[in-house]
């Protein structure tokens, strides 16, 4: 049962630590708690919040209620033969990996961190290094239970009220509270990946390499040096891999092929001064990273943590951006708009706004999700510390992106203009229609929803 009694509002932010707003946080442990919490909400509405790894204001609700879902984390059903698990929405991918990697099952899609909940993964319709072959997380959800504004629990999926399902997939929690989900896991023979690394001198050679050979790999991502200019612009390190078969492991590893240990050991202290990451330090870091990466390496064995979640090794790494926080700008442009990608990259490197990490990936097919982000094309994601002049630069990049038929990612963006966002997501009106149908009074809302009039 949720604790009774009055609660005070606490300031919340996303992973980027920008624009905090206060909300009344209600811990919930199950459907009954959620239903009780919904009966007590104010006109400012309510929103489910998981591990708050979205970078922006997606999991905030100024002046309203926020349900802390992380206590609703039970495993409900396991079908090892069928490779499916049914879980409560607050369970994390980290926990799913701890539980199921030793049994030969891996999460179907993982982002760059495993500290996200299943509910959050559905709400943001997350993607990972395998998007070009496996699609998004929601494409591996058999069905989910959604508690809607009328107090009903609806079981929805691609075959049951698909309209509501594809509004909920990528719907940022605005259609209701995701209580449970049945997820189709991926079978693995070992907990190691066979990884190939290639260094490419510029953006053109990277894109060419991805176009010709990406289909051979299950997982693929490139790190780009955004600071390098001129002929070296877009120089990158491409890492691609697949899970190893048991017979590819060493004799010692074969004795325990699914061995997995993945918890955080370090935590970054909250002491980093503003401006620590500046063009000089980032350029030095990028130079070092590029030079220590192998020019070409084949069949290296790596663990799950090292390959998928290198930054999870340092808890709260977001603190290195200092108290002003940071923004992650991620966009996708369709195939054929390579020139736009090049111009965007040029604009970023010319601006001198240091980007510590820039990641490029080639997306596969889109799904029917009304606000789902991935679409066939190229996606670039970069972290930028909050500095003066950034708003104008990103507005300019938005125009480039939308002009090429591209868009930005709702789980990351903290600043796109509402009218530009509408041009990026032509199915927004259909999403609004679904919301009007299942939540006519607008009970479910968030700072993100208010900012962009979702």
């Amino acid at each position, binding site marked *: 049962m949720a604790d009774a009694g009055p609660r005070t509002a606490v300031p919340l932010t996303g992973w980027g630590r920008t624009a905090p707003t206060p909300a009344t946080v209600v811990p919930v442990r199950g459907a009954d708690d959620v239903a009780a919490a919904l009966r007590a909400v104010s006109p400012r509405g309510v929103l489910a919040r998981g591990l708050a790894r979205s970078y922006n204001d997606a999991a905030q609700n100024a002046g309203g209620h926020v349900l802390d879902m992380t206590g609703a984390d039970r495993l409900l059903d396991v079908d090892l033969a069928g490779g499916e698990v049914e879980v409560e929405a607050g369970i994390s991918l980290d926990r799913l990996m701890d539980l199921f990697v030793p049994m030969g099952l891996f999460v179907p899609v993982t982002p760059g961190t495993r500290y996200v909940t299943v509910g959050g993964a559905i709400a943001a319709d997350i993607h990972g290094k395998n998007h070009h072959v496996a699609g998004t997380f929601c494409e591996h959800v058999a069905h989910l239970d959604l508690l809607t504004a009328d107090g009903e629990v609806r079981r929805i999926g691609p075959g049951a009220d698909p309209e509501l399902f594809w509004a909920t997939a990528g719907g940022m929690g605005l259609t209701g509270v995701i209580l449970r989900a049945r997820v189709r896991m991926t079978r693995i023979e070992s907990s190691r990946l066979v990884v190939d690394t290639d260094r490419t001198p510029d953006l053109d050679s990277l894109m060419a390499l991805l176009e010709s050979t990406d289909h051979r790999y299950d997982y693929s991502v490139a790190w780009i040096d955004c600071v390098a200019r001129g002929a070296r612009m877009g120089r990158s390190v491409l890492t691609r891999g697949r899970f190893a078969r048991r017979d590819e492991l060493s004799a010692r590893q074969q004795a325990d092929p699914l061995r997995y240990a993945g918890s955080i050991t370090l935590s970054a202290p909250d002491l980093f001064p503003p401006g620590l990451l500046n063009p000089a330090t980032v350029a030095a870091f990028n130079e070092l990273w590029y030079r220590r990466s192998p020019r070409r390496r084949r069949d290296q064995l790596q663990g799950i943590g090292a390959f998928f979640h290198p930054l999870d090794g340092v808890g709260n790494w977001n603190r290195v951006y200092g108290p002003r926080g940071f923004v992650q700008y991620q966009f996708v442009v369709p195939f054929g708009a390579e020139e736009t990608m090049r111009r965007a990259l040029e604009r970023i490197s010319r601006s001198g706004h240091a980007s510590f990490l820039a990641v490029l990936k080639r997306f596969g097919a889109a799904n029917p999700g009304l606000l789902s982000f991935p679409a066939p094309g190229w996606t670039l994601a970069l972290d930028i510390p909050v500095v003066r002049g950034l708003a104008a630069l990103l507005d300019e990049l938005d125009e480039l992106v939308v002009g090429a038929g591209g868009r930005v990612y709702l789980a990351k963006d903290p600043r796109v203009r*509402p009218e530009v966002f509408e041009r990026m997501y032509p199915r927004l009106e259909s999403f609004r229609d679904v919301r009007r149908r299942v939540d006519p009074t607008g009970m479910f809302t968030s700072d993100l929803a208010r900012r962009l009039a979702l």
Partner: protein
Amino acid sequence: MIDALGSVGSLLLVGGTSDIAVATARRYLVDRPLRIVVAARETPRRVTVAEELRAAGGQVEVVDFDADDPASPARMLTAATAGGDIDVAVVAFGQLGEADRLRTDSAAAAHLAQVNYVAAVAVGTELAVRMRTQGHGVIVALSSVAGERVRRSNYVYGSTKAGMDGFFSGLGDSLAGTGVSVLVVRPGFVRSKMTEGLPDVPLSTTPEAVAEAIVAGVRGGRHTVWVPGAMRWVMSGLRHTPRAVFRRLPF
């Protein structure tokens, strides 16, 4: 919502036809289009201002506001918030009055106090209630250096500004931790339609400079700004000037 990079999505101008209010809206529009609610009496000037701000890219709404009417602040804010949250509200209405007449005309003095102080307190209170509920927002109060230490030449006006300055400063402190904040702006002599015909003075400023200071102050999360900045040190000196000297100063 004021977003992660400080961009403002909606702006309420109470006393929306004042030169400073209009300059503030124009300054925000330089950065981005935004929703602007102009609260003012129904005058031809209001129509002109609304058209001007629309032409500059604003999504403009107009609501009635009359500082003489005690029921107006609540009604105005109900109308202004019907279309969504207000991120920044600028309390920009006020009158200068005629100092000579105010010395002898008690009705005129009381009326100035009603407009500059009583109505400002009511508007500030209504704004605070609504912004507390929405959990975010910035109230910008146009005070004046005249309220910092009230001078003999315009003591009625100065006293009303001293009162409203005190109110908004205290209101800001009371809102700590709620997500809502108050920015008290203390301009010196502003060359505007309110001061038309008056002789210029040293350290005078413009509505555009005040607008720039408001935008920078909101972005920086400041609680008080002086325009021009040097006014802070001038007034700090005047504040500590002995009365015997102060009352003999030529203003």
